[in-house]
């Protein structure tokens, strides 16, 4: 049943969101089902609640983190939920008439119901985390509701401000709740409410308290977070009436009530809550006097009353809690009706400016009468509900003698606040309903449609009824609510109008008379209409937000300046730090063992490599030279591989070297031939970094080289021939032991070729220099044409030999590709050949498929991927031929390598004439 209660608004919100074709009226009626249905369900459990029972229901959601959907209706939840639904029902009715035909009723009601559901969920949450969930949902939906008139700048600003403040508070609340849950060991409300002593004694209590209060204060717009509420008045009036008087802003004080048993009772709590409440109470009341906007005045008044309620919860005495809850209800009724009246006035006159309004009692007598009653209730005039709770407030303020805050001070604050409340109520009354007729507005103002006024009438009737007969009307509800907070501590109290002549009554009288005098004085001595209230905090907020934005931009642009050099420097520095750290921490570099003498060849290659590297650095501005010089370093590296027993590496490095030089020069034709020097300071810095990096690497390398090695490779050597079927162990590792690496490697290679092709196919690139007509190279041509077939034979040889001697698919692919490159260099590409690219692409694709297919073939035979098979079948004439499945794999490698290099080189060669190498898939892509 509770699930249905909670699900109803959300389900209807979803339904309304889908009702694209429905009329406004249908939508409004559908929306009304939510609060009415909810009230009906709530009514069903009312007897149990009034008996003091707590109704529970649990739906598991994320038990792993203690986040379950626990619905728990006790007196407080019942009271608050009922308030939310009852006011909600009236708002729906009111809004049905309020909304302009241009407004999207669908969007409005869907969001409104979502909000309603969130509020309801908040009220009946039995799990604090879940409460946070609904809490934030109210922030989100209120953001959408405040910004409902999205075309209005003030609405957008107001919505963002509300979200920033209340949403931020929600995050703080989350933090507080997590801490609370950590202290208690559970997020379930029952457990937390039962653990008050434990919580208050815990070291994390202050942090948790402050975080939770941040949540409550921001939501209830307590000082200094109050500024968002007046700006939220840009919302449509039903929203203001609902969110900003009855429901959302009450969430904060509701939370104070909800967690009262756990959090209250410490000095810290009292000081924080009372002082915040008191400050809000007085300052907002003072500001309210000078508001010229009807809704603005009501907003500040709301702040003031929320301050009052907050103060009451801060006082912590059981009776103060009762008073707080009572005022919560009363405030909801009179303030909601006032907002609705304000909406009617706005609706009919077209303005909410008190300076232009006046004499409305003549134009719309009924509405005026209703509003005036509500205003008097707000002012705390006897016989109305506002008087009763304010009287209780005065009592508690005056009686708070044993608290940390002096009761005299509180008495004074309460009285001053009362005086100010009276004063702004009077201003509201006089400026709106008395005096001259409205100025500069549409004067055909009259009573609103009948049913638009009904909600106001109901609410005002409640004000009067409760004011006259509190014990009969509100008594049981209040008691149930108070029992929900206080449980067995519920005090005896008397909801009578007359308690005899006592201090609170005196304070009331002082308030009313003082307010009257104050207003009269202000009215006579100053021009209220001319004064603008300072918006210190709002301005401060704007400064903060703007400053935050500026700070963010500044910080981000300073850090993310788009410089590759900075990225690289940071990378180098990071590595240096991380590599150095262990040795700074005291680890030894390790003991060196005896080293080998440097052979003559070693010294020679050292010179070659070092000269090549340094020469490249020195000549890097003149790029052509640098490319040639770097070739020497590459040659040195290749020869080092030769000397150090790595023939396969030497071959590969040599061939790659040749291809790299070709690639660089092909690309350099499109790049500047020279580069400017950079500033000296930067060069010096980089040189130092380079020196540090280089020496670091050298030391680490040396440290590894001079220690013993125990590697898995020994077993590879042992298994290579019997199980791998070949004698070139490097090749067997490549195609068998670590064939998976090779598969990835040719994938990389293939992608590189495809990418080069993709990048150059559609690009319009032009060389840096223009050249005269082509030249013929007769003599080289003859040689190259002779060389190519021979080189192919060599490639086949290297491919076949690879498993036993240096060679293999990769090297063979290079040996095929490089002479082809030479062919193109010397003879040229000839006529454009669109099918060339297609063939090369197919070569790459088939190569990849061959490699993967070999692997998959093993699976077909029930072996793991890439398991090799080899044998020596006898062929006629030829004899025993060593055949291995890895040869197919290697063939794939060969095809990918040759295809890719050709594709890359051809793409580059044809870069200036994309039409000649394009061809594949062009029909699709352009």
């Amino acid at each position, binding site marked *: 049943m509770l699930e249905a209660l909670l699900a109803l608004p959300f389900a209807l919100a979803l339904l309304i969101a889908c009702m694209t074709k429905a009329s406004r009226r249908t939508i409004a009626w559908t929306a009304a089902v939510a609060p009415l249905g909810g009230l009906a369900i709530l009514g069903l459990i009312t007897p149990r609640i009034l008996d003091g029972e707590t109704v529970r229901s649990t739906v598991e959601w994320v038990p792993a983190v203690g986040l379950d959907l626990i619905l728990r209706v006790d007196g407080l939840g019942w009271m608050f939920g009922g308030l939310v639904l009852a006011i909600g029902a009236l708002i729906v009715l009111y809004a049905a008439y309020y909304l302009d035909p241009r407004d999207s009723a669908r969007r409005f009601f869907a969001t409104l119901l979502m909000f309603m559901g969130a509020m309801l969920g908040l009220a009946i949450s039995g799990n604090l985390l879940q409460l946070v969930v609904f809490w934030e949902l109210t922030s989100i939906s209120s953001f959408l509701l405040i910004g409902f008139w999205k075309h209005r700048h003030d609405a957008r600003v107001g919505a963002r401000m509300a979200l920033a403040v209340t949403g931020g508070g929600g995050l703080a609340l989350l933090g507080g709740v997590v801490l609370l849950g950590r202290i208690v060991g559970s997020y379930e409300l029952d457990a937390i409410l039962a653990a008050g002593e434990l919580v208050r004694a815990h070291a994390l209590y202050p942090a948790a308290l402050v975080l939770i209060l941040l949540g409550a204060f921001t939501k209830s717009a307590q000082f200094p977070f109050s500024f968002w509420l007046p700006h939220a008045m840009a919302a449509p009036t039903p929203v203001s009436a609902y969110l900003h008087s009855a429901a959302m802003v009450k969430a904060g004080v509701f939370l104070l009530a909800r967690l009262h048993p756990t959090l209250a009772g410490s000095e810290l709590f009292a000081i924080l809550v009372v002082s915040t409440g008191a400050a809000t109470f007085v300052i907002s009341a003072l500001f309210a006097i000078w508001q010229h906007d009807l809704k603005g005045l009501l907003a500040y008044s709301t702040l003031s009353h929320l301050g009052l309620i907050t103060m009451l919860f801060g006082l912590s005495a059981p009776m103060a809690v009762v008073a707080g809850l009572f005022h919560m209800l009363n405030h909801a009724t009179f303030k909601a009706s006032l907002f609705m009246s304000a909406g009617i006035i706005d609706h009919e006159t077209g303005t909410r400016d008190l300076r232009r309004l006046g004499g409305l009692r003549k134009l719309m007598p009924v509405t005026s009468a209703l509003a005036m009653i509500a205003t008097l209730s707000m002012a705390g005039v006897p016989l109305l509900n506002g008087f009763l709770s304010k009287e209780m407030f005065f009592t508690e303020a005056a009686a708070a003698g044993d608290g940390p805050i002096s009761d005299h001070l509180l008495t004074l604050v309460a009285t001053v606040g009362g005086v100010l409340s009276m004063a702004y109520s009077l201003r509201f009354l006089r400026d709106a309903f008395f005096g001259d007729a409205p100025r500069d507005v549409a004067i055909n103002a009259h009573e609103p449609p009948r049913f638009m006024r009904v909600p106001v009438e109901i609410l005002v009737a409640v004000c009067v009824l409760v004011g006259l007969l509190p014990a009969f009307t509100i008594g049981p509800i209040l008691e149930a609510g108070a029992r929900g907070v206080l449980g067995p501590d519920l005090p005896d109290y008397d909801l009578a109008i007359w308690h005899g002549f006592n201090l609170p009554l005196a304070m009331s009288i002082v308030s009313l008379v003082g307010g009257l005098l104050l207003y009269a004085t202000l009215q006579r001595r100053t021009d209220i209409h001319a004064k603008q209230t300072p918006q210190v905090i709002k301005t401060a907020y704007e400064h903060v937000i703007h400053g935050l934005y500026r700070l*963010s931009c500044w910080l981000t642009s300073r850090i993310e300046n788009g410089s590759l050099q900075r990225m690289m420097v940071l990378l180098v520095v990071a590595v240096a730090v991380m590599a150095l750290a262990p040795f700074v921490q005291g680890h030894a570099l390790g003991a060196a063992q005896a080293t080998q003498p440097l052979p003559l060849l070693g010294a020679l290659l050292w010179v070659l490599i070092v000269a090549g590297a340094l020469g490249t650095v020195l000549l890097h501005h003149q790029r052509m030279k640098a490319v040639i010089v770097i070739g020497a370093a590459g040659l040195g590296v290749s020869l080092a591989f030769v000397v150090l027993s790595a023939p396969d590496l030497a071959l590969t490095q040599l061939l790659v070297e040749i291809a790299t030089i070709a690639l660089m020069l092909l690309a350099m034709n499109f790049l500047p031939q020279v580069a400017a020097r950079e500033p000296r300071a930067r060069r010096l810095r980089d040189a130092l970094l380079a020196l540090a990096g280089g020496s670091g690497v050298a030391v680490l390398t040396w440290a590894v080289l001079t220690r013993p090695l125990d*590697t898995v490779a020994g077993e590879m050597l042992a298994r290579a021939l019997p199980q791998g079927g070949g004698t070139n162990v490097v090749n067997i590792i490549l195609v068998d032991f670590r064939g998976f690496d090779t598969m990835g*490697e040719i994938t990389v290679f293939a992608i590189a070729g495809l990418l080069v092709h993709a990048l150059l196919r559609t690009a319009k690139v032009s060389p840096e220099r223009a050249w005269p007509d082509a030249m013929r190279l007769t003599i080289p041509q003859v040689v190259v044409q002779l060389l190519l077939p021979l080189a192919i034979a060599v490639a086949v040889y290297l491919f076949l030999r690879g498993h036993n001697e240096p060679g293999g698919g990769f090297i063979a692919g290079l040996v095929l590709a490089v002479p082809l490159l030479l062919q193109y260099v010397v003879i040229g590409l000839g006529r454009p050949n669109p099918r060339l690219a297609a063939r090369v692409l197919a070569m790459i694709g088939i190569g990849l498929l061959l490699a993967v297919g070999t692997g998959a073939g093993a699976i077909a035979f029930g072996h793991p991927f890439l398991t090799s098979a080899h044998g020596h079948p006898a062929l006629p004439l030829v004899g025993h031929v060593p055949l291995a499945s890895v040869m197919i794999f290697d063939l794939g490698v060969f095809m990918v390598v040759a295809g890719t290099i050709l594709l890359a080189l051809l793409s580059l060669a044809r870069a200036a004439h994309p039409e000649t190498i394009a061809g594949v898939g062009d029909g699709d892509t352009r």
Partner: protein
Amino acid sequence: MSPHLAVVPVAGPIALGAVLLLLERFDIRLRRALGVVGALAWIGVGIALVVGAADGAVGAYLIGDWPANLGIALAVDRLSALMVLATALLGAGCLVYACAGWDRCAPHFHTFFQLQLAGLFGAFLTGDLFNLFVFFEVLLIASYGILLAGAEGRRIHAGLQYVAFNVAVSVLFLVALGLLYGVTGTLNMADMAERIAAAPPADLGLIRAAAGVLLVVFCAKAALFPLYLWLPDTYARAPAASAALFAIMTKLGLYSVLRVYSVVFAADAVADVAWPWLLPLGVATLLLSAFGAVAAASLRMLAAHLILFSAALLFVAFALDSAPAVAAGLYYLVHSALAGGALFLFADLVRRQRRHRGDDLTASEPVVQPTLLGLVYLVLAVSLIGLPPLPGFIAKFALLAAIPDAQAGWLFPAVLVSSLLVMIAMARAGSRLFWGDADPEPVRGGTPPEPARALPLAGLFALLGLNVAMALGAQPVLAYAQAAAEQMQAPAGYLEGIRRAEPGRGEVAP
């Protein structure tokens, strides 16, 4: 379940990529259909792997039927299976989105896409450090492919930085691998872990230095302060589907940190080599990325910073090095990859519906479908800020709950304040995109933008739906994440799983 399933996510996409390359001369619809069928198949495989790994067994698949330390072993545990599934899900969404038209503009797109998936899957599955490097390279170069194919102008420059930086990082990767091999004599992670545990004290300095270099490598890929500078521009300029898929690439860096520093460097003597650095740097990244989000001038830039933000939060989670924190992190990882990816797709939709303003967060030009896109944005924003009830909240809460008391004092404020900043940024962005004034002087002429078609929306909604599903089904996912985290915290099981794997072939012939 066939044991060969483990290799399918690698071999399958490579084969499919090759087939798609061979099919380029045919109608693009054929390639789209095949690609999507493939993507769905990888999801199926991912699910099967997750189901298979759910019991906590570590499945070692010996490629080439060699012992794990001689050949390359794939290792399927809960974590890697989860990552494969997440990648497959994100990939399918992105691919469907890309099929709406971008794949026409980018040559070889479908091949690149499948190969990128292969790289990601391979990196998640491999149990060999050098093989990890290889798959890093596969996915990187494939990512250059889907980033740069069809690119022009500024995107090329962003790509240049991305490529150059990553090539430099790859060099460092090799340095670290070399040093580790030089000291331990093996490349298999489990084998290396055992050898490191038994390493003489004299070797510890070198091992720690290599581990430090490796950490820089992973952190650069995962975009941790101060190594994240390459990310925002690259991601913000990437084509939508690529950027969306990139959302998982930073996560791969994080995965690698988690995997390598939980398994390989688990021995007491080296256990503290990574985490102490990551916590403060993660927090710094968290705050800076949040500031960056506030400062973002375009939706894609915002999205890029949110990717950073999520990575930072993950660093914090993983650095806490406790099962609940890691579990929260893993849940968040999957969620943020899906949501971040969806945001990039969404930004692209916005861009296409606003002719002049693109996805700039400046003065407004209305989108064609304000309600639809507005709702999508709302869901995305709620999810990414970490507001309830979407997974971002659950993850953030779970993380906060997992922060030990000792660190709560500074981590709580950091997480909460940065979340607030992100919220401000997203509220600002959303209200500017959807609530702005109409352009005072709307530019006329040209064909008006069209509403989004079904295909891209399907891709986007798939990701959104997964996100919502992650909230609804948070319990099983979180429970799985918790189990995965516990598995990571107890690497002995992983080592045992690899050690137990026996090749089918006999012993060395005498």
